[in-house]
């Protein structure tokens, strides 16, 4: 048994078979061959080894000719490794004695050697991986299986997933994700959240220790991954899966009840979504609206810039499904480095502080207008609101509103219908906006506090950097103060204020947020039942008391442990 600690990005527990995806998207399932085909399979292995040997020989000759013998020697090494007599006998034995398929035998044996190499700190690990891939390519030929065609439930283990790989996975069969790299905001995290399956990222290297078909446990609540679990661990987690299932079943009974406190304060509880299909999760759980519709995947899923119709189709799907309930669409919120069709930024040494999000939209006005036109057109069909991300100065907001006015004028000229007075708001996620919040509330129809970036910019910490992530705390007193300032300014001018960061999804913070005066929360659809449960279990007076006390602490750890204790006291069912 082996335990890995990573970053928990999507809650829940999954137990199942591993699907190991390497950097080329191979999957090597554990397969057995029948006794009578052993001879044929060994023959297949020999042919693949011979073919791989020929390939390497050709590479060696070509490279030696062009670059010199020194470079050709790299391939000579590969050839010698491939011709190692013990390697050959080990592979043959696995097929003949244990009836492993040649593919599985190769991936198993090579990964074991890779482990040995790592242990003795050999610098030749990459060579082994290269040889493994070459052998597998020769064995699988055209039958190479991608991860888009699955036939049984799997837990996907990968070094990293590209946005398109993540988006193209067969949803019906993927039960969980683990990636060696990545942080809270990684694509894997977002996709896993959208699929509502457990995910752990940033575990560090481990793929050499696991083969396809191995039993794996993903504990998305604690960021743990268990390889080769023992019976006791399996039993413990099975029990936990059962508990979670029965809690979910109990919470489901709240579906049609409003998020209302015991003393009658109505909380507007909306869903955050990334993909149009998630709107169904929101409807199923009785969300009051879509508080945050992120539009980034429209830009990531294809190699070319999405046109107006692509935008419109996605927005219409969401807006129509929600009927009269509000849908807040956030405009483009990415850096140029993430978007394939934008020119690579020249001066982007520090992307988090660079030309991203609204800054990039204002620089690429045509792209921005395309999105705004589609949002406005969708507004004719329902209750749409526009939200600008990463606003840091009042001038930026005015600029963005001017572009929007331009687009409206254009639509008017062409007689295209849209909602003329649709609400326009901003994300509050840069501390400068909070400092100037009294001015902003005069120029927006609503505010939405994005805690993820607000925390990052307030504490100057990158939450995907595991060396500093411990500084990243939603309940750091400085962050709470900024939220309080925003809520207070909004209250004075009767501007609605929502909170949509990850903070709103954690039951730990719900009482605090209500106590601070928030009446709108937007959470991932999966978190709706829990947060609703808390709203329905407490009074505003209790929450206000909790908030007052929380503000007396001077560090995040004390705040958090106090909040946990209070949750346990007031809603024991959720305060484990």
């Amino acid at each position, binding site marked *: 048994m082996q335990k890995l600690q990573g970053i928990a990005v999507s809650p829940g527990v999954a137990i199942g078979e591993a699907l190991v995806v390497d950097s080329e998207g191979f999957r090597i399932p554990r397969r057995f061959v029948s006794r009578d085909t052993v001879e044929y399979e060994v023959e297949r292995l020999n042919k693949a080894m011979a073919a791989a040997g020929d390939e390497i020989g050709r590479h060696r000759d070509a490279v030696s000719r062009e670059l010199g013998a020194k470079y050709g*020697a790299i391939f*000579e090494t590969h050839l*010698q490794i491939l011709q*190692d*007599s013990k390697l050959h006998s080990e592979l043959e034995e696995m097929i003949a004695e244990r009836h492993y398929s040649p593919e599985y035998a190769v991936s198993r044996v090579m990964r074991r050697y890779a482990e*040995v190499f790592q242990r*003795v700190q050999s*610098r030749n690990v990459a060579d082994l991986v290269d040889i493994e891939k070459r052998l597998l390519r020769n064995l699988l030929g055209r039958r190479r299986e991608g991860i888009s065609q699955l036939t049984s439930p799997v837990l996907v283990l990968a070094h990293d997933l590209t946005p398109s790989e993540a988006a193209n996975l067969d949803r019906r069969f993927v039960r969980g994700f683990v990636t060696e790299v990545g942080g809270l905001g990684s694509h894997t995290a977002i996709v896993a959240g959208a699929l509502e399956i457990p995910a752990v990222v940033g575990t560090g290297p481990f793929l050499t220790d696991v083969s396809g078909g191995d039993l794996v446990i993903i504990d998305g609540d604690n960021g743990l991954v268990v390889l080769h679990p023992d019976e006791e661990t399996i039993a413990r987690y099975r029990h936990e899966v059962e508990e979670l299932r029965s809690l979910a079943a109990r919470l489901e009974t709240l579906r049609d009840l409003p998020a209302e406190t015991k003393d009658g304060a109505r909380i507007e509880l909306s869903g955050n979504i990334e993909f149009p299909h998630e709107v169904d999760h929101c409807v199923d759980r009785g969300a009051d609206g879509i508080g945050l519709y992120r539009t980034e995947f429209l830009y990531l899923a294809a190699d070319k810039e999405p046109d107006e119709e692509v935008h419109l189709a996605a927005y219409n799907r969401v807006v129509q499904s929600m009927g009269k309930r509000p849908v807040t669409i956030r405009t483009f919120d990415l850096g140029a480095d993430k978007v394939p069709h934008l020119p690579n930024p020249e001066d982007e040494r520090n992307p988090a502080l660079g030309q991203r999000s609204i800054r990039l939209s204002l620089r690429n006005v045509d792209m921005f207008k395309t999105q705004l036109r589609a949002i406005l057109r969708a507004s004719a069909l329902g209750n749409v609101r526009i939200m600008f991300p990463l606003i840091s100065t009042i001038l930026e907001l005015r600029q963005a509103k001017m572009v929007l006015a331009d687009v409206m004028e254009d639509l008017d000229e062409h007689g295209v219908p849209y909602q003329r007075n649709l609400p326009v708001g901003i994300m509050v996620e840069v501390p400068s906006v909070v400092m100037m919040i009294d001015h902003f509330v005069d120029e927006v129809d609503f505010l939405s506090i994005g805690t993820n970036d607000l925390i990052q910019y307030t504490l100057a910490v990158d939450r995907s950097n595991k060396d500093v992530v411990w500084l990243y705390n939603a309940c750091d007193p400085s962050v709470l103060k900024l939220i309080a300032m925003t809520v207070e300014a909004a209250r004075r001018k009767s501007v609605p204020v929502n909170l949509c960061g990850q903070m709103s999804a954690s039951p730990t913070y719900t009482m605090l947020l209500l106590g601070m005066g928030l009446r709108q929360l937007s959470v991932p659809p999966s978190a709706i039942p829990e947060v609703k449960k808390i709203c329905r279990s407490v009074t505003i007076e209790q929450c206000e008391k909790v908030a007052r006390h929380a503000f007396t602490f001077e560090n995040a750890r004390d705040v958090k442990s106090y909040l946990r204790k209070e949750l346990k006291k007031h809603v024991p069912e959720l305060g484990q």
Partner: protein
Amino acid sequence: MTVANRAGLHARAALLVANCVRQYQAKVELVMDRQRVDALDMLQVLSLGAARGQSITLEATGVEAEAVLDSLERLFAAGFHEDEAEGEEQ
């Protein structure tokens, strides 16, 4: 023998050892920490992970056992010619 070069018995060095052994009628085994591997089995040799300063016993059998050991001794002593000009490498 002692591994003298900085990088240890890595791929390039192991290749030189194997190429040397091939020129003689002899079978050579490397013994380190009770592990014994054939000098021609590159994967096994690399799995030893012999670092600088590590001592390795060389055992040869066959008609040219003496000669191959002499030759290997020079190779080890020279630190696998690590810092010499490219042209001399084979």
